[in-house]
């Protein structure tokens, strides 16, 4: 017994403590409880890792039976294999760093305890998600992280835009969740169980069309959670939340849940070529689509948000072409450098007193040296420059894509160039030139810079953690073959992207040229939000107002309820006349009643 349940239980305890009595505790106690609980999860993961010889065989633990209905059984079971281990280390490790960072970042916030309570709640659900041994338990974690995400996006609930963004994230995720639920129903019907190990073991014997349906529905769920086209729209808006939230939930961990589910169900996907192909297409399109939007954004967090969408697209490509371990590899390195980019952005925003527009920054290199150095590491990593971490994982995906279909590789390379361009555009505009804002930028406190430095080191050398080799027992490696030419091409794309950004944004300020129609199209994010509003949201609101509200609710439902009330009142008015309060009239009624009764008995002969 490795007591895996302790891993999510501790953050849950932290949530309960900070959520109930946190407001009365001093700040250091709140932060200590929250950080300690997450670090404990990390430590316990390490302990289990050591005790099981790096999860060489999966650890499965049964705690209690949750649902029992005939043959169908769902237990509260946790399982941990090497894939889980990678997720556990990423979630608890980066989670710990971001919790420490939040201590400094949220210092001046009045809802300090609420913030840490939600963060711990998120950790508890995320760890439940990755440890779950069956789809239903996984779904609890899945919904739970959605809930925490909603709570944290709308954390500053006095801001209308923040609550709107929270609602949007929740509602868009519901669409994905619906797909996930249908997938679970199909699994129950076809496999008779929700146990992931049993399902994946039984997958080869099932009809291809069944597997494809299940996989496509799982993909819908994954698209919602991992912000893939067409359900990615919530993620850029989710940047309304505090920056540590964007780093932890909307860059490093929660958005990788979709990747995790597909990787976890890899046996289903590898038996359905159609579904895998769709996964790859969705990922590829999302990657280049989001990267192109990222090119022209001016809000530093929005740039990184679109970058996240794009990088998640990369991971989907990896999953689609069967390079599961490469995807998980990229998931991990992306967690390092994207969390770092967001935390760095948070440090910059903190320094500039809440300013997020890169046009109102500039020249921060000298004022925020640590932030600059670490963000540069992350930038080089995401651009795929060797030997930074992103290089290894991105190339693993691109090479696998090349072996699957060369054109996918070329689109991936173009995306890589665009990625390098927009990240370095943000870095150059923010850190070089002269300062254009009115705040007095200052370096962040130690609680914020220490996590930055640790993540900086991980972004630089994290690629040497040989994830594909570690995951070999779970995802048998396909053809590896380090194609030197392909590597050179993708690295060149990254370098060219950086150089173009340098030419355009370093040195003298760029003249404003009149924007062309293509520029406008991209600048307005291809009008996707507007299209969704016109096609779905607006008709829905209009129908709700005219039909559901005015007709169904006001006329029919209210009519019935009000009608029942009115009839009751009328009847009451009538009966009320009897209750005159005069004893004599009561007596008279009694007499009348008795006479009627006696007459009736006499007439019907009941008395005889």
């Amino acid at each position: 017994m490795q007591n895996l349940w302790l891993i999510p239980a501790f953050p849950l305890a932290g949530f309960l403590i900070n959520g109930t009595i946190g407001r009365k505790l001093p700040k250091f106690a709140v932060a200590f409880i929250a950080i300690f609980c997450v670090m404990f999860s990390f430590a316990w993961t390490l302990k289990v890792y050591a005790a099981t010889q790096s999860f060489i065989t999966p650890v499965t633990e049964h705690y209690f039976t949750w649902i029992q209905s005939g043959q169908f059984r769902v237990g509260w079971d946790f399982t941990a294999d090497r894939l889980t281990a990678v997720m556990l280390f990423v979630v608890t490790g980066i989670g710990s760093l971001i919790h420490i960072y939040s201590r400094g970042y949220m210092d001046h916030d009045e809802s300090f305890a609420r913030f840490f309570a939600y963060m711990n709640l998120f950790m508890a659900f995320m760890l439940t998600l990755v440890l779950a041994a069956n789809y239903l338990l996984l779904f609890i974690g899945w919904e739970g992280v959605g809930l925490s995400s909603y709570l944290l996006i709308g954390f500053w609930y006095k801001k209308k835009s923040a609550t709107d963004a929270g609602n949007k994230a929740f509602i868009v995720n519901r669409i994905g969740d619906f797909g996930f639920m249908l997938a679970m129903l199909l699994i129950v019907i076809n496999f008779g169980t929700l146990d992931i190990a049993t399902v994946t073991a039984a997958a080869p014997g099932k009809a291809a069309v069944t597997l494809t349906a299940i996989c496509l529905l799982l993909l819908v769920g994954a698209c919602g959670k991992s912000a893939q086209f067409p359900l990615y729209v919530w993620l850029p808006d989710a940047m309304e939340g505090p920056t540590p939230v964007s780093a932890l939930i909307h860059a490093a961990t929660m958005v990788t849940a979709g990747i995790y589910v597909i990787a976890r169900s890899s046996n289903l996907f590898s038996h359905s070529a159609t579904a895998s192909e769709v996964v790859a297409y969705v990922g590829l399109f999302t990657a280049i689509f989001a990267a192109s939007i990222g090119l022209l954004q001016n809000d530093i967090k929005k740039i990184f948000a679109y970058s996240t969408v794009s990088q998640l697209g990369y991971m989907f490509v990896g999953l689609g072409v069967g390079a599961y371990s490469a995807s998980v590899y990229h998931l991990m390195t992306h967690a390092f450098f994207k969390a770092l980019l967001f935390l760095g952005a948070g440090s910059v925003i903190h320094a500039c007193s809440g300013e997020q527009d890169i046009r109102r920054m500039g020249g921060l290199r000298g004022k925020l040296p640590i932030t600059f150095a670490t963000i540069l590491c992350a930038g080089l990593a995401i651009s795929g420059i060797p030997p930074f971490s992103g290089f290894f994982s991105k190339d693993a995906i691109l090479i696998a894509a090349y072996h699957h279909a060369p054109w996918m590789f070329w689109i991936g390379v173009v995306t890589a160039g665009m990625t390098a361009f927009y990240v370095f555009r943000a870095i150059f505009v923010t850190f070089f030139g002269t300062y254009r804002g009115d705040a007095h930028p200052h370096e962040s406190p130690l609680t914020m810079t220490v996590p930055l430095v640790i993540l900086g080191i991980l972004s630089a050398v994290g690629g040497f953690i040989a994830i594909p080799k570690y995951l070999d027992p779970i995802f048998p490696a396909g053809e590896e073959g380090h194609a030197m030419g392909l590597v050179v091409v993708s690295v060149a794309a990254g370098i060219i992207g950086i150089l173009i950004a340098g030419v355009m944004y370093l040195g003298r300020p760029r003249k404003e040229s009149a924007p062309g129609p293509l520029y406008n199209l991209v600048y307005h994010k291809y009008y996707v939000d507007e299209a969704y509003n016109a096609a779905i949201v607006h008709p829905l609101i209009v129908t709700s107002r005219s039909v559901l509200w005015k007709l169904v609710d006001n006329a029919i439902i209210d009519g019935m309820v009000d009608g029942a009330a009115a009839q009751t009142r009328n009847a009451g008015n009538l009966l009320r006349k009897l209750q005159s309060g005069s004893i004599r009239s009561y007596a008279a009624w009694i007499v009348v009643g008795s006479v009627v009764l006696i007459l009736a008995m006499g007439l019907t002969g009941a008395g005889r």
Partner: protein
Amino acid sequence: MSAPAGVPLTWFLVLSAVLFSLGIAGFLLRRNIITVFMSIELMLNAVNLTFITFSYQLKSNSGHLFAFFVMVVAAAEAAVGLAIILTVYKNRGTLNIDEVESLKN
């Protein structure tokens, strides 16, 4: 034992009904509380007469028992009722039942 000669059962019952109806009429029509109170006593005793008649006719003690119960209740009622009437008169200075109607409204 048989019924007293020449007085059939029906007479007792008719007398009882007449007394009861008089009681009702008095209760409904009179204004003075004491008269109303006496009407109630009249009705109770009309019922007692019926009980005794049937008890005598059927050679059963139950009717007697009931009659005694009713008498006890009537005695208690007389005690409480007269006390209430006295208090009402002391407080309101009237015995007109139509003026004692605080239950109304």
